[in-house]
């Protein structure tokens, strides 16, 4: 730690975390008006975010490691807090997105309209942010698990804010079960870790041997427990429903930040080992490919705006995991460019995803706020009614598709660069996995493009499909400003890749031992200056094109007509491409994975009656696999239900008998 500084960044970050955690506390006092409480929460949360953001960027860029010791009188050893560049890098999106969401809540969830739930949401969102900061910085496994659990539970309460709705309760329940199953795996993992190291402190990077007994257990329980939180397929079952049913700024927090905690956990645990076995990298890369492909394919078929975004989060988590897997393969075979580009792509895409996915979720909140529905097939023509939201949403869509000159392109570019570097002069297995990764990433990218063209086209273009368009309004400033901030960040990372990569560079090098990276860094491998120049040129071309277009538009004012008129004289909004028909070809193509269900009426004879057609894409893993299995288990073990008879006195007796038996066993 640098002693010459008066205020060190670690204290600033911790102060930020405390501010974030306390932001919702004023709302707990019923005497304080709900609106005042929300305003106070926003101010405190923003202050905390600014402080934390400053501290985190300083640590990430300077590359120093901050260390604090929290003195707690618990029998688990001292509670260390380590803020190394990797941790600091993960802190950036936490503070950024939580601040943006706090502001957004004022417009989206105004205390005037929701006096009760705005207090609850304010409190738990603050707690969510601060617990994530603590778990990122925890150097003690017990402290880590405590923060992890606080995070999981506060997210649960935030999701179930509207708990009078049956769907919300159901989504919350699935989330709660999943997160605890994941935490159980983490308990096993930390117990094994404790057995290996002999202390509850999380060891330093590269100090454990992967050949030691228990290393494989740690690896798999980490993948399972952290993967459950990150939403890696097929552990994603809680994710779509929870994201769709929570309030939009909660979805933004979860998708933008909370999923990344799983990624952080996997990176942290894997980095403890040295040397990395090749199969670890292959397993993680494989999980990433499955997650990315299945995520984007499922996203294409969704009718629910937020479910679609949730599946796209699974896809992006897949891309991030592909990057991590590539880096691990590079470590295993000793290929520094692969390590650097894989890890760089992984971390940068993590940051990018938290920027554009929060932007999209906040944008979807604005759309839902205006239309009152999440159904894509009831939207349409929204760009005319809410131009600001449409523009920002469009920026988010371009970014998430990985198109230049926005930020998604930069991270995917790093990944591609790594893959092609890995192909050069490597053994057959590495060569073939890299080729597979290139094809998968290309496929994911193109399908994501199709998915978001559909989303933008159906929701924002054409004509409105529902009859009541009078109430449509653009979002208020409190909602637009956070979205604009996130969109600016997207643009910034996309247009200035050199500075963005500068932010990633030190965390990348800090994850793994320096020997692995052979003194190289991202900017010395990838021609980023060219990328920056091309990006600027492209932006100039786009701006010039738009300018020309606007001038022509002024010269020849357009004739208003429906977009998908197809020559009809009296078209209705229902003639347009619908969300289902747009995706039909791709859904049909992937019907083996998606298992779409159709309710198709048989039409016979002349002048048939009114008929309705509907289609639905079920959640394959949950509805097709897990729920039937659970039902079967419930049937087989139904005799155990007799133990649950509702007599509290006998329940106490159970406890007593258990206690006596345990005493007798240990005696």
């Amino acid at each position, binding site marked *: 730690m640098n002693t010459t500084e008066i205020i060190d960044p670690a204290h600033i970050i911790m102060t930020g975390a405390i501010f974030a955690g306390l932001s919702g506390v004023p709302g707990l006092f019923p005497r304080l008006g709900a609106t005042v409480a929300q305003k106070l929460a926003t101010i405190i949360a923003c202050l905390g975010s600014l402080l934390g953001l400053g501290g985190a960027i300083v640590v990430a860029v300077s590359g120093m490691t901050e260390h604090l010791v929290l003195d*707690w*009188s*618990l029998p688990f050893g001292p509670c260390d807090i380590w803020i190394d560049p990797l941790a600091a890098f993960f802190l950036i999106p936490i503070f950024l997105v939580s601040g943006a969401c706090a502001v957004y809540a004022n417009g989206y969830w105004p205390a005037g309209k929701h006096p009760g739930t705005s207090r609850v949401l304010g409190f738990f969102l603050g707690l969510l942010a601060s617990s994530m900061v603590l778990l990122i910085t925890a150097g003690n496994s017990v402290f880590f698990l405590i923060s992890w659990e606080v995070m999981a539970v506060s997210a649960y309460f935030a999701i179930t804010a509207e708990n009078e709705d049956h769907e919300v309760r159901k989504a919350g329940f699935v989330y709660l079960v999943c997160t605890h199953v994941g935490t159980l795996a983490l308990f096993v993992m930390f117990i094994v870790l404790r057995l290996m190291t002999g202390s509850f402190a999380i060891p330093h990077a590269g100090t454990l041997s992967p050949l030691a007994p228990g290393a494989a257990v740690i690896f798999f329980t980490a993948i399972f427990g952290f993967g459950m939180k990150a939403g890696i397929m097929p552990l994603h079952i809680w994710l779509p429903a929870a994201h769709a049913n929570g309030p939009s700024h909660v979805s933004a927090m979860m998708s933008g930040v909370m999923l990344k905690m799983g990624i952080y956990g996997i990176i942290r645990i894997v980095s403890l080992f040295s040397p990395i076995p090749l199969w670890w990298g292959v397993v993680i890369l494989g999980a990433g490919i499955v997650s990315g492909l299945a995520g984007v394919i499922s996203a294409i078929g969704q009718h629910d705006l937020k479910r679609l975004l949730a599946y796209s989060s699974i896809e992006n988590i897949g891309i991030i995991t592909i990057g991590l897997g590539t880096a691990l393969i590079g470590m295993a075979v000793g290929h520094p460019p692969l390590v650097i580009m894989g890890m760089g792509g992984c971390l940068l895409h993590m940051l990018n995803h938290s920027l554009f996915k929060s932007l999209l979720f906040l944008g979807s909140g604005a759309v839902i706020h205006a239309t009152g529905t999440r159904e894509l097939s009831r939207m349409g023509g929204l760009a005319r009614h809410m131009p600001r939201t449409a523009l920002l949403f469009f920026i988010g869509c371009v970014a998430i598709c990985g198109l230049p000159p926005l930020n998604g392109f930069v991270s995917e570019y790093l990944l591609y660069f790594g893959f092609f570097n890995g192909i050069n002069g490597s053994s057959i297995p590495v060569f073939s996995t890299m080729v597979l990764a290139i094809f998968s990433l290309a496929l994911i990218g193109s399908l994501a493009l199709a998915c978001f063209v559909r989303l933008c086209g159906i929701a924002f273009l054409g004509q409105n499909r529902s009859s009541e368009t009078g109430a449509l309004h653009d979002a208020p400033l409190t909602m637009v400003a956070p979205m604009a901030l996130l969109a600016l960040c997207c643009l910034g990372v996309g247009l200035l890749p050199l500075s963005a990569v500068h932010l990633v560079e030190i965390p990348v090098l800090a994850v793994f031992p320096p020997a692995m990276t052979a003194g190289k860094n991202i900017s010395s491998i990838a021609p980023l200056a060219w990328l920056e120049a091309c990006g600027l040129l492209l932006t100039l071309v786009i701006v010039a094109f738009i300018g020309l277009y606007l001038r022509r538009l002024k010269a020849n004012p357009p004739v208003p007509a429906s977009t998908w008129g197809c020559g009809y004289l009296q078209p209705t909004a229902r003639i347009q491409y619908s969300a289902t028909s747009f995706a039909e070809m791709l859904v049909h193509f992937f019907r083996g994975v998606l298992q779409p269900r159709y309710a198709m009426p048989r039409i016979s004879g002349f002048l048939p009656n009114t008929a309705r057609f509907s289609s639905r894409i079920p959640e394959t893993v949950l509805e097709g696999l897990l729920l039937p299995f659970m039902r079967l288990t419930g049937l087989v073990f139904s005799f155990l*239900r007799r133990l*649950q*008879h*509702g*007599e*509290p*006195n*006998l329940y*106490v*007796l159970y406890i*007593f008998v258990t206690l006596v038996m345990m005493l007798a066993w240990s005696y």
Partner: protein
Amino acid sequence: MDIFADQLLVFVMLINFVVLGSSRMTMAIRAVAVQGVVLGLLPGIIHHFSWHLVAITVGIILAKGVIIPWLLFRAMDRIQIKREVEPFIGYVSTLIIGAVTTALAFVFAAKLPLAPEHQGLLFVPASIATMMTGFLTLTTRRKAISQVIGYLILENGIFIFGLLLTTAMPVMVEAGALLDLLVGIFVMGIVINHISNEFSSIDTSRLTALKE
């Protein structure tokens, strides 16, 4: 000093029997309050003076002897229940079982591998006997208030065991135990109110209607 502490512990065990044998709620609550006060005095007797100890003593007497009984009396007033009418096991039988478990507690404590300075003290058998009494009350009584009383006695038993360690016990653990107790009583209070609103009685055996 230990002799005086032993006498107090015998008193605590006698109070256990008062609770087991009384059908009137008022009596049982008062008995538990007295037990709490006695237990609050105990750490002051067996350890050397320190301000930390004074704080603990005052805290315990306030919580166990004043606040919790007051909460219980209030709950009792609100739901208008004075007696435990028909326990699952009768009073005489409970008293006999209580006597047997107390005797067993002494036998069991003698066999426990304790630290030499704790051997021969009444603390361990008194603690186990009190915990047993708590369990007995919890399992045999129907009314929710009686169950809260059982829970309190159980906590008292745990507390007696903790007395052996008070000086080594970190503040966090003490505060945690007390907080646990208070929160438990609060929750039980809420549950009692809800049970009485929902079923117009606080007979916990009616809760079977809630099972799937």
